């Protein structure tokens, strides 16, 4: 059975402001969700592209003297009001396109018809980090947390206590637009944002993700980010084999403290394309290093490595 997790990391400069988007999706697996690995890959793609569209069309034009100021008011409003609906619509369109190629005899699915979408069922975590704010969206299980400079940890989208024992909301559900939750918060100069599929959280004792975030942050502060990222593939492997027995994916955005090096990392870990010297993502699961603005990957085992990117700005919609 293929790994059903997927990951994307993208960065853009829009009207002089840098943004970084990362998404983690976890296909449900099991016989009823036999194309959920594709559903997860389409989810991180749809989320990245929807953020790209939002940032390019949602940000208000600014005067040159305000170029350094972040103008997220319009983006934030549109994110809260429309992102879930637009994301689900885009994901369904991609699913229908894939299904057409997969089985041309399959009847075209309507939005109300969930039978096709269920094959592709997946959760999704997505975050967009701007100079001052973070926009976070989530449907289904998984964890998003933010470690602040004062060492406190915020959970912008707390888990639903009523969803236990593997039950989760899904992009494949008819009311997915309503079930997509959003949060927006300001960040300081330093901090660490962590997105993890439920295979990571389920593998750790209570508070484990917070400890992980603090240890990575401390390593970054001491200049040992690359070393700790190099050990992530082994750590994630243990999470799966000794903890959750599930696919595991983690994406971290480190603000204001990273000093990425270019030395090689073992296959599976990555320090990805920071927009500026103070913004880095460490992530899994693996894929070949990509110098492009947006890298998606999917699959299990192994690691990947990349140094700071130098060509990751996008001037327009892909």
């Amino acid at each position, binding site marked *: 059975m293929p790994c059903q997790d997927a990951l994307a990391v993208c960065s853009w400069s829009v009207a002089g402001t840098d943004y970084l988007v990362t998404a983690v999706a976890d296909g449900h697996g099991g016989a009823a969700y036999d194309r959920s690995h594709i559903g997860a890959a389409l989810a991180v793609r749809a989320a990245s592209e929807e953020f790209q569209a939002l940032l390019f069309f949602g940000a208000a034009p600014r005067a040159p003297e305000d170029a350094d100021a972040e103008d997220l008011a319009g983006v934030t409003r549109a994110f809260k009001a429309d992102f879930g609906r637009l994301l689900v619509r885009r994901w369904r369109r991609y699913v229908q396109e894939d299904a057409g190629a997969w089985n041309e005899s399959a009847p075209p699915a309507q939005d109300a018809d969930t039978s096709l979408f269920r094959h592709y069922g997946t959760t999704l975590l997505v975050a967009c980090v701007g100079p001052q704010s973070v926009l976070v969206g989530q449907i289904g299980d998984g964890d998003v947390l933010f470690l602040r400079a004062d060492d406190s940890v915020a959970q912008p989208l707390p888990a639903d206590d009523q969803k236990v024992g*593997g039950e989760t909301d899904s992009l494949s559900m008819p009311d997915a637009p309503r079930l997509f939750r959003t949060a927006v918060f300001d960040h300081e100069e330093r901090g660490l944002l962590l997105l993890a599929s439920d295979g990571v959280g389920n593998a*750790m004792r209570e508070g484990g*993700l917070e400890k992980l975030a603090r240890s990575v942050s401390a390593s970054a502060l001491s200049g040992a980010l690359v070393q*700790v990222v190099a050990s992530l593939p082994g750590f994630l492997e243990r999470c799966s084999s000794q903890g959750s027995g599930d696919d595991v994916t983690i994406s971290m955005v480190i603000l204001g403290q990273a000093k990425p090096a270019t030395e090689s990392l073992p296959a599976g870990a990555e320090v990805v394309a920071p927009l500026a010297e103070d913004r880095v993502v460490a992530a899994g699961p693996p894929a070949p290093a990509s110098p492009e603005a947006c890298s998606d990957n999917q699959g299990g085992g192994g690691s990947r490595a990349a140094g700071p990117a130098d060509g990751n700005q996008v001037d327009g919609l892909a």
Partner: protein
Amino acid sequence: MPAETPLPEGEIAKRPLQFFWVVDSSGSMDGAKIATVNHAIREATQRDLPGAVENHPEVQIMMRGIKFSDSASWHVGPDAVPLDKFLWPELTAGGSTATAQAIRLLTTELNTEKMPRRGFPPVCILLSDGYCTDPESDYQSAIEALDRLPWGAKAVRLAIGIGGDKSQYDEESLGKFISPGLRKEGIGVLQASNAEQLVHYIKWASVSASVASSMTKSKSGQADGANVLLDPPPPAPQVTGETDVF
């Protein structure tokens, strides 16, 4: 001296699977029935279950036992015991059949505040040879309270009726204990007519439910049917002589 390589922190731990035996210890269980239950649970927990989860090092089964006669109380608990340290204490029989009280005691432990959020769906196996002596309305409300709890609804709940024929125990009431999703899949009360069948079903139910629970995949809230996939029980050994029958 080389600098120490920093490692990501956060303690990795096996995922807990909470397992509850809910065992009738009323007077009618005295003799061969209770002796067989004691023997079979020991066999299952010391040999069959450890063997079944050997290839799932990420699973930690945590055992508890509830007994019920005139009232319900912990036979093993309320603190759960890891499977590798679990020993089933000898259970003796006597008194009436407070099944509703036993289900209420189980329900208190399946509360979201007491259950580990990252755990597998719990496994609950009810064994009884009789009719609940609590008021019928109490039994019904206990089942409804169990069904309302998120972990109660997600639990793998099976029932074994002990008796030579189905009139000896309350099949309808025991059937209500079975997970609603499993009932829809056609899983009913497992009838154990003799010692051999009782051992067979105790082992099958405990092993199959635990393995199925530990294989649970994420499932969208819209999905129909049981959250845990359980194959139908294999045929029980045939009764070969009248003297074998309970």
